[in-house]
């Protein structure tokens, strides 16, 4: 029975079935299946989709569809983990958001889902985030990585401001910074002093692992 639920949950994610994955997650909780085991199975499914994307067999709508199905199930399972007082082993804490003046969220949210699936604790601040708020969150959550997104050329320089702010606060050395978004290039990332950039969501996951030395 347990295996059947897990198998179907995995299938729901692979088939982008949002309501199916949420109801299967609820069922898993009702059947008292170890939530860490459930999360592990979901992570495997989303990785499979990410790998398919990496191989060029799947496309963005597939990635986003699977990420949405995963997102529908994750809070249910996380709540159960919390209720049981157990803890998921985390690769590290990542603060994530789209910079001030920029309201684009699709890419950023996709990266958040994949990072969560990978085993990071992700604090998604949302869009249009001011430098002060990023810095405040870095302090509050004692984060390992700060990930910032900017789609527009006009807002990309905001990432530089956040880095400068972290430097002024004496926090820069303790944190790795990765950036992304349509307006970003490798050259720009180097120029503003970020630690890494990748143009794709699965690439961002690999980058995050690399930045914390867990490739």
């Amino acid at each position, binding site marked *: 029975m347990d295996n059947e639920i897990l198998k179907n949950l995995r299938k729901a994610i692979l088939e982008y079935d949002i309501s199916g994955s949420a109801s299967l997650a609820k069922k898993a909780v009702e059947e008292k299946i170890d939530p860490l085991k459930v999360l592990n199975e979901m992570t495997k499914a989303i990785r499979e989709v990410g790998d398919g994307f990496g191989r060029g067999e799947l496309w*963005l709508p597939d990635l986003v569809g699977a990420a949405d199905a995963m997102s529908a199930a994750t809070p249910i399972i996380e709540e159960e983990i919390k209720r049981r007082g157990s803890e998921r082993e985390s690769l590290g804490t990542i603060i994530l958001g789209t910079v001030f003046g920029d309201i684009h969220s*699709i890419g950023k949210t996709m990266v958040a889902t994949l990072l969560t699936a990978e085993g990071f604790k992700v604090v998604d601040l949302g869009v249009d985030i001011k430098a002060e708020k990023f810095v405040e969150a870095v302090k509050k959550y004692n984060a390992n990585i700060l990930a910032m997104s900017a789609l527009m*050329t*006009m807002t990309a320089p905001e990432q530089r401001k956040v880095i400068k702010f972290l430097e002024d606060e004496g926090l820069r050395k303790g944190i790795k910074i990765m950036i992304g978004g349509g307006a970003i290039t490798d050259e720009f990332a180097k120029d503003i002093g970020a630690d890494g950039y990748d143009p*794709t969501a699965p690439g961002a996951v690999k980058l995050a692992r690399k930045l914390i030395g867990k490739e």
Partner: protein
Amino acid sequence: MLKGFTRIFKPLEILTEEQIAAIHKGTLSVLKRTGLRFESERALKLFKNNGCQVDYSNKRVRFPEGLVEECLRMCPSSYHVGARNPENDMIWGGNTTYFQALSGTKSINLDTWEPKTPTRKEYYDAITILDALENNHIVPWYTPWFGFKNVPPVMAMPEGLAARLRNSSKFICANYSMGCEQFNIKMAKAVGAELRTSMAAAPPLTFYSDAVESAYRIVNAGFILLLVSGSVYGGTSPSTIAGSLITGNAEIIAGLTLAQLIKPGTRVIAQDFSFPQNMRSGSPAFGDIAISLHQTAFNQIWRKYGVPTDGGVSYPSSKKIDYQAAYEKTINSFAGALSGTNTIWIQGSLYGELAFHPVQAIIDDDLVGMIGRFLRGIEVNDETMALDLIDEVGPIPGHYLGKAHTRKWWKKEQYEPKYADRLTYPEWLKAGKKDCIDNAKKEYERILSTHKVAPPLTDKQESEIENILQEAREYYKKKGLISSEEWKNYKKDLKSSNYPYS
């Protein structure tokens, strides 16, 4: 007055009357049932006062059909636009098509094809090139580049506009960002030019306050408003062309309704700036054939609405001046021209919005010449049918080469490209195997050494422009939008012997 190119035949149409009616009905339904979100208190009030259903809790505006139809009727279908030099004025609308340069965030190295940040000198030089190109009628915003070295991002638009006004007397555009339109309007008025500024929706179905505030300023200044639907179909609009046309048109109509309510009769132009999504990278799929289909249908619908259109956006995905760039640009600009786009974007761009190069602009100008020739169509009359001449020449050994009729007509019928290689093999080998890129590079040097903007700004205009720039610098510095590091580099740039370079 710049004449542009007048199409003398029926435009390319791909929708049936029933399909147009269905899309129009769908658009009205979205406007009425779904509505749009407007992040602007004063816009919400204006809509409410004019019969829209406004939900202040989520800033959603639902538009009654009657108001929409009335505001569409208020838009002029054809109008005059004024450049700094009246010889470069235009009339937008009807069967006429004009061409405008595109833009990029970076320049490129023509040997390595790698992107690089342009300098102030390169920025001004590129505008000189665009001013000189015969078939480039408009020098728009962000053109040639979004900014240049040492200029803080918030100053990129005012500095760019100043450069365009200094080095070109063609019709100029400037866009909005962080309130810069207040300085743009002052600069345009100081030199007696009109401006076109966009009011861009944030798809799906949203207008942010900066777009609305800019629209109020531009409409009240009496300038031209370009209403943009910039969706990426599959991401921010439905992945189908029909669905994307509906959301895009709903956005544009909501914008023009606001413009007409602020000031009836405001000159607007509807822009199709939507692209399919590149489902690998998430970026717009620049150069995709769907852009041509979308644009053709868009033109057909907006012709019915009686509003001039802008589009035919010929951004290639290619990073090089190469075969791919050529076919991506040609297909989309040609489809735009054949289907009746009134202002088409083409000269200079590479790799979407990410690169621009003036040498590419020179090559594109030849392409525009060819498209323009096509639009002039075929004259059929006694003289062109040449029956008497055919009779006079008769069969071989007769020929037409030495005839006055040939001398009169061949140049009208053909388009003689300026930069394409059309040499014979022996000539080509002897001349060093030059291609169109080599020829365009040579033209680049020739233009820079000979071209002068006509007329240059007067001393009074120049000093006014500089004062407005200074005002903008102080404004943004006070607002904290120029960091001390940015200001340090910028100040050095302003004090350089090269400043302002014109």
